[in-house]
């Protein structure tokens, strides 16, 4: 009896320890962002922001060009995701539904492209963009982000298209639709959840991208938020309150998206497990 009680207790204890390890940095970011500076530099840490203040968020938002950079990040991210969805869904349809020469080769090619070493190619990309006279522009960033998320979008959507029963499409065609119409009216609506999760993953990649943005857009007007955040500490010295407020502002959209998305992803995985 005693053993089974212990046997039930220890996994829960370990789980609590792991939970704290996972969550503490995230908690500490938010907690610091809300603490008055006096509490942040107290001799003993103040574990909970009892005298919560918004002054650090104000400092972060009042920083030069903050809203320009928010705008830049939003534009680049949204456009990259939209373009890659448009290009990706048509290609996914071909790869999932048609048989043609080289199909397997294309799939392997995109799998390889998914592992592309973007971190290492910054020098070559920098020279190309400079020669095209496009440094400090949002266009190259948008295009590169689009291609960065394209293989993932395309390969994932391929799975979603393949999961739509072929009969639906065929019966639409019997009812007089062309193949394209059948795709648009029957398959596309059914792909909505797939489009949703792939675009969220794409959004996260583009929103977070660091090396290319660092190299290509050095002028404040053309910077994106990750670069702003990483240079924040240099600009504000040891103003940890403002830095953590900035980090919180940057992270919140992703944290919200991810928690929402994770439920879908896990549901999708278990669905696949049950049906597969």
């Amino acid at each position: 009896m005693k053993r089974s009680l212990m046997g039930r207790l220890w996994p829960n204890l370990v789980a609590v320890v792991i939970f704290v390890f996972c969550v503490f940095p995230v908690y500490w970011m938010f907690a610091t962002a809300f603490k008055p500076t006096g509490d942040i530099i107290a001799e003993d840490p103040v574990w909970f922001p009892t005298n919560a203040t918004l002054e650090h968020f104000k400092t972060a938002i009042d920083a030069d060009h903050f809203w320009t950079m928010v705008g830049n990040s939003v534009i680049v991210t949204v456009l990259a995701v939209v373009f890659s969805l448009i290009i990706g869904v048509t290609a996914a349809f071909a790869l999932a539904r048609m048989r043609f020469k080289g199909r397997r080769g294309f799939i392997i090619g995109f799998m390889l492209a998914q592992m592309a070493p973007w971190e290492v190619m910054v020098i070559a990309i920098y020279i190309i963009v400079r020669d095209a006279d496009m440094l400090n522009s949002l266009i190259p960033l948008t295009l590169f982000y689009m291609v960065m998320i394209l293989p993932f979008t395309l390969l994932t959507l391929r799975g979603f298209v393949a999961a739509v029963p072929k009969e639906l499409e065929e019966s639409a065609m019997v009812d007089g639709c062309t193949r394209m119409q059948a795709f648009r009216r029957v398959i596309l609506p059914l792909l909505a959840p797939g489009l949703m999760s792939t675009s969220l993953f794409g959004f996260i990649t583009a929103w977070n991208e660091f090396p290319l943005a660092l190299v290509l857009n050095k002028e404040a007007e053309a910077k994106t938020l990750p670069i702003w955040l990483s240079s924040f500490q240099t600009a504000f010295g040891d103003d940890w309150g403002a830095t953590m407020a900035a980090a919180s502002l940057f992270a919140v959209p992703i944290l919200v998206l991810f928690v929402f998305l994770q439920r879908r992803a896990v549901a999708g995985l278990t669905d696949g497990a049950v049906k597969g």
Partner: protein
Amino acid sequence: MTVQKTERPPSGPTEVQTPEGGPRPSDPRKEPRRLAGLTPYLLLAPAIVATLLLLGWPLVNNGILSFQNLNMRQFILHLTEWNGFDNYKDVLTGEDFWRVTGRSVVFTAVNVVLIMALGTLVGLLLARLGRKMRTFLLLGLVLAWAMPVVAASTVYQWLFAQRFGVVNWILAKIGFESMADHDWLATQYSTFFVVLLLIVWMSIPFVAINLYAATTTIPKELYEAAALDGAGAIKQFTQVTLPYLKPFLYATTFLEIIWVFKAFVQVFTINEGGPDRLTEILPVYAYIEGMGNQHFGMGAAIALLTIIILLAITSFYLRIVLKQEEDEL
């Protein structure tokens, strides 16, 4: 990079497809045969053109640059000076490259071993927990997983800050008085320790959550059969769980190797490869040599050598993935 983490995401149940074999008799509108044959290529064209242009061209360009003597002067004057294999000769005969490569390999190995071991343990723990506790732990894992890498690295700088950093405070409290004012980013190993902790923290959720999801697909009968044969908990693990999860563990390990090997952002944002360039791993080394010191040709040569190493790792990974998806392709 964080996001590529979600490599095998909610792709629904995929069905084995039947060959297309041209228009069927039941199709009401038969497209002209020749056009129908071209359709898949037309649908694929935008994706292929974009990828070749924006991924292929930088790769080729990197190769071209690596055979050029391209420093600040040539860069400003737009000069093209070919120097054959000089960059490679310099890189491969110099000490730095081999030192950085060795460091990258050890760094990757330590990270991946920790990530896989701890991630697997947490995944198995998830499977053992009750429903409420599991949801609770999953929430924690998802929060760590979701933290954007630049935000996370800023937080880690704050956790390990010399003054008022909470880690130093705790260490001093539990008896390591000398740690009260410790500067973590002053030496090579302690900087690597902070980076390592950051990477392990960010990576465990992916392994744990996916491993847990994989364990839920193991048929219960296998355990029952093993129990009938008198296998204990450990034996059940080594003889049922492990073999069943083997393909998954292989693929995940390779993915983690690739990701950690390329971990530019974590290393760069924590301390830009410092102190004294002692925490540069290959991608950071290529960046600092190429962009920072403006030896663009040299940087491109280092980048190409890094890509070759990555390609070797990737091809192993692809072979496994392709084997798994054989019937799906």
